[in-house]
């Protein structure tokens, strides 16, 4: 789960990290009031889950409250990568001396959380990694002890020659580490970490990504989810305990298991079609999940054919068959459906489907080819 910049900053502030004052606003009038309260030049920053906000015109410098109101009028309601801007962060504009990067990610290779720090901040760290990798220091943290002060200090001195600044940065890194663990992050970054002309070290932008598997035990963090910034179909799917990602094609896919779901999408493409979505109904056998899956898929007008691909292990295929029958009785399908079922209770499932006027195949390639042909307006092979 991604947090907005303002949410990440609110969290990091509670851990003591120095962050310029700022507040969230949803209307130009609010923006003006916050800017007046700050009483200095401000930045108005669009709060959407998309990179490249600045390039898209979603981040503006405003010399006073009146300008802030004017710029906010343009930013609120604009679209950045298909996401409508509904909130802006109004924050004090800081004078910038130098910009550094400080981030923590969970690294698959070392199987540890790893600090990445670089004096070349303010830009995309991937770009720094690609062009000047020697400018990045990587520091894996031993999970048994956590980040130690001397380690933070080593990184601080990698960033800054000035001892006062190095120590200030070290303190921020220790605070960031504590926040990272307590908030269940898979990524946390401060970019840029700024040294002001007065020599103060402050975090001017922040990003946090929460490990979805942490949300059950961190209800306060889970409550930060902003559903208005997600596709409605994905919100709906998550509530039904389904993993759903909308794509651009027209073959709606319902599959059990993430690997098989990806392989099914790939096979749709292999046979000349385009998948409309990734949808994993997971391992449990629950007819209700199938009903929800069908509801979500059929709500997408671009779907021209529906493909079920179920390999029953834990999932009982008769439960899936019952789900299909229940769902289509309540809401008759307007597009053709192709069903592939095999595995646990396959004979029973086939009988249920046949008794209710559906046909099903046990071969994955056959089913995918049929669905692709139907989506193109052709007849089933």
């Amino acid at each position: 789960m991604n947090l907005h910049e303002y949410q990440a900053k609110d969290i990091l502030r509670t851990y003591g990290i120095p962050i310029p004052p700022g507040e969230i606003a949803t209307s130009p009038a609010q923006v003006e009031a916050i800017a007046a309260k700050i009483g200095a030049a401000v930045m108005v920053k669009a709060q959407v889950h998309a990179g490249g906000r600045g390039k898209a015109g979603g981040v503006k410098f405003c010399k006073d409250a009146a300008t802030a109101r004017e710029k906010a009028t343009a930013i609120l309601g604009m679209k950045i990568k298909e996401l409508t801007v509904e909130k802006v962060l109004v924050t004090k504009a800081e004078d910038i001396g130098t910009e550094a990067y400080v981030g923590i990610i969970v690294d698959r290779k070392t199987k540890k959380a790893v600090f990445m720090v670089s004096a070349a901040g303010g830009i995309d760290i991937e770009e720094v990694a690609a062009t000047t990798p020697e400018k990045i220091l990587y520091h894996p943290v031993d999970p048994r002890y956590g980040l130690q002060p001397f380690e933070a200090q080593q990184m601080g001195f990698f960033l800054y020659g000035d001892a006062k600044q190095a120590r200030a940065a070290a303190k921020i890194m220790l605070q960031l580490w504590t926040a990272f663990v307590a908030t269940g992050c898979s990524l946390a970054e401060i970019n840029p970490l700024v040294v002001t002309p007065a020599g103060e070290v402050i975090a001017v932008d922040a990003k946090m990504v929460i490990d979805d598997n942490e949300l059950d035990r961190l209800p306060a963090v889970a409550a930060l989810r902003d559903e208005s910034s997600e596709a409605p179909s994905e919100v709906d799917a998550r509530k039904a305990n389904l993993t759903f990602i909308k794509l651009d094609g027209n073959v709606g896919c319902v599959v059990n298991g993430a690997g098989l779901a990806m392989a099914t999408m790939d096979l749709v493409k292999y046979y000349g079609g385009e998948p409309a979505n990734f949808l994993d109904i997971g391992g449990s056998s629950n007819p209700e999940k199938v009903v929800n899956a069908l509801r979500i898929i059929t709500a997408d007008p671009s779907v021209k054919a529906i493909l079920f691909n179920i390999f029953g292990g834990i999932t009982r295929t008769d439960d899936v068959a019952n789900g299909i029958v229940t769902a289509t009785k309540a809401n008759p399908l307007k597009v053709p459906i192709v069903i592939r079922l095999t595995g646990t209770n396959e004979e029973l499932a086939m009988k249920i489907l046949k008794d209710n006027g559906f046909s099903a195949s046990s071969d994955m390639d056959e089913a995918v080819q049929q669905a692709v042909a139907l989506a193109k307006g052709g007849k089933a092979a």
Partner: protein
Amino acid sequence: MSVFIDRNTKLVVQGITGRDGSFHTKQMIEYGTQVVAGVTPGKGGQKFEGTVPIFNTVADAVKATGANTSVIYVPPQFAADAMMEAAAAGVKLVVCITEGVPVLDMTRVYPYVKETGARLVGPNCPGLITPGESKVGIIPGRICTPGNVGVVSRSGTLTYEVVYQLTRAGIGQTTCVGIGGDPINGTNFIDALEAFERDPKTRAVAMMGEIGGTDEQEAADFVKHHMKKPVVGFIAGQTAPPGRRMGHAGAIISGSAGTAAEKIDAFKSAGMGVAQRPKDFVQLIQERLK
């Protein structure tokens, strides 16, 4: 022969009285696995299905029964502790089926288990099966048949699909190992490939990877430099959009690392066979067994 599990595997089931644990314990017993003990704290002294003794702790279970392998079906918030408990009790192979284990938990579990010398498989995996001998986890027994192909995969149902197609074509398996789809897992592709290379009965290996990370690229490098046996690979997620998590926490492409194209290129340059579809495994493996 086989890898990691065989008919001498003596299994303790952690979470044996839970919904998933009890269902799959019955299936494992039915398959012929030696299930010697179960663990549910507070239910020590009872018996599962009137036959399998239940203990309060893994240490008690190991002491009383000599269990050498553990399988874990506990809820995600208890899984990290369960893995460490099994390793601390002296179990040599710990298999964690549980899905949804926080990755920061795994940063602690991984070094802990490693220091005890135990092997961890998973979490978020379907487990292992040595057809005709033993099954630890949830892979459906009837889709497998004994033979001489090793199978290793990051996914569950995709593994079933490939194994099913192999079995239907008369190609049996030595052992199928599901290593799981999480970013931090115990056993990786290289560990399994190394075991298959050493196993005298295994003559070829089928390997199913996914987008995300660089495990498959490193595995390809291992195949190139350290394996004489032929390996056929497949990558799921060739059409997945970058930056999106595809169900498996591990299946996310970030930047240039972890795309399907990159992994397939690595397979090709290692001289591996590349299956474009799951069904292609049949022909590619057949050619390599001749």
